[in-house]
């Protein structure tokens, strides 16, 4: 007979969180549809846009050189990757786990909820980073996009990425409560992310949208993530085209950070392992 355990060892929340990350990443890459629709999707879109609009004119840098379609669309696709890897992936994934019994099984074990969250957010960090790296490689190697050389720009890239991907993941966990079943998850979540991408300057040039739509998009974090990415990858000549004529990195921190806090609060209030008494 096992002896009665009154206390579990300290530090297990973090240890189990790391073990969850390894499990989640492995399972993610074995799931064919998630690899295509969230991992490779931005790469596919970048390839299509860069090829289709290769003769288009997107403006020039300070030296008067034309900016290629691939260079122009890269920041948007990076931002879209943050949204897909975090929000879309987790909202659908967790809704499915809730309805197929994964969460019910975990609820019956001594796994801390926080370890489960660490596993999900860690999975998004790892897959999101791999996705961004792939996008940069494809842009540079296949389409000859010149990547930034200044350390300061890369520093901006890193914090925009980390803030964006974390916010997106946390919002995904919060949104996973919305679909009533795993089957409906994709059809509930996909329209949300699709509309956000269209109004936030991922597929359509943001500056060409009417002012009122720009204002609506400014409420949501994707517009700011895309703006942060543009500040890294587009020449300074593009800054004046932005809303307010500036990259407004303070705004990126403020709005995205606000959504991060809102997401964390929503997770804390709404997350349940199972729908009790359903």
């Amino acid at each position: 007979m096992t002896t009665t355990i009154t206390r579990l060892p300290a530090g297990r929340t973090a240890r189990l969180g790391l073990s969850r990350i390894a499990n989640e990443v492995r399972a993610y890459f074995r799931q064919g549809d998630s690899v295509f629709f969230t991992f490779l999707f931005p790469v596919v879109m970048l390839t299509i846009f860069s090829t289709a609009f290769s003769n288009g004119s997107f403006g020039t840098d300070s030296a008067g050189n034309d900016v290629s379609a691939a260079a122009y669309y890269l920041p948007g696709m990076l931002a879209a990757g943050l949204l897909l890897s975090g929000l879309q992936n987790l909202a659908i994934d967790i809704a499915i786990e809730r309805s197929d019994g994964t969460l019910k099984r975990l609820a019956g074990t001594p796994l801390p909820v926080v370890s489960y969250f660490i596993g999900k957010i860690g999975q998004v960090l790892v897959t999101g980073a791999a996705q961004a790296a792939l996008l940069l490689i494809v842009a540079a190697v296949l389409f000859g996009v010149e990547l930034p050389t200044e350390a300061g720009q890369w520093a901006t890239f890193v914090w925009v990425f980390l803030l964006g991907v974390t916010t997106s993941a946390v919002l995904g966990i919060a949104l996973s409560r919305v679909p009533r079943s795993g089957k409906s998850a994709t059809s509930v979540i996909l329209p949300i992310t699709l509309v956000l991408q269209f109004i936030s300057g991922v597929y359509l040039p943001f500056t060409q949208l009417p002012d009122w739509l720009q204002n609506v998009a400014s409420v949501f974090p994707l517009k700011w993530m895309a703006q942060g990415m543009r500040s890294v990858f587009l020449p300074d000549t593009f800054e004046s085209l932005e809303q307010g004529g500036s990259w407004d990195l303070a705004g990126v921190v403020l709005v995205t950070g606000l959504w991060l806090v809102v997401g964390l609060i929503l997770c804390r209030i709404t997350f349940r392992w199972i729908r009790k008494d359903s």
Partner: protein
Amino acid sequence: MINSDVAVSVRDLRKRYGKFVALDGVSFDIAHGETFALLGPNGAGKSTTIEILEGYRDRTSGETSVLGVDPGTGGLAWKARLGIVLQSSGESGNVTVREQLTHFAGIYPHPRDVDEVLAAVGLEQQHKTLMRKLSGGQRRRVDVALGIIGGPELLFLDEPTTGFDPEARRQFWGLIRELKNDGTTILLTTHYLDEAAALGDRAGIIAGGALIDIGTIDAIGGAEARVPVVRWLENGARREQRTAEPATFVARLVSDNGGREVFGLEVVRPSLEDIYLDLVSRFETGERDDSLAATHGVLNQQEATR
């Protein structure tokens, strides 16, 4: 009053879903080291009971204690002492059997050895197989393996052998007997009465949200229900007689037959299944009679008021 010296104590447990009464005052205890089988038709309240004890559902009223803890407020240290095999699972299964077991072993403070558990459930051959590629019966064995990987003090088994072939079921019984020998307390629900008889020390029969009988396996239904039945053929017709002295009865049959063999002779002791079916059908007819009586009562009252 809750009994805190036992592994599981349930007093006057009630559960309502809106107007539907799923549990209508159920009480029982399970001693430490005991295997208790909870039997009953579909929708009788077995799973509701077990899920309240596992902490998955809230009770409407009554008292419950599981390993000395109220399951409604049980924390992680409490869960570490339980093993739960749910009725069904449909996880996407993009991990191998070994990966899944190793991961779950890590969640418990004193897990069992992964290879030992793989062998115990007979999945050594499939340890590198992705869960989604397993057959239904093999998946069920993974469920059982995940239920025992933490070395639980108390194991919940909700219809554990559904989808097993007869050989796998026998193998599973062996595994459960080993766990019993190690002192594990087990709460089992099953539709296979032979399984309940083979594994259970005691059984409770639940019907319509109430416990209609409870006792040791060989005492369920009372002495009356266990009286053997003698069956034989007489002029081509089936005859049967219940008697507490079957040998004497058969001897008389033979002598009545002029010392000749009696055809189609069998002496049958009612199995747990016979007794169970009898109890449940009597309960269900009883319920119908009650509702008829109630209707009559209303009619009579209406007549009287006229």
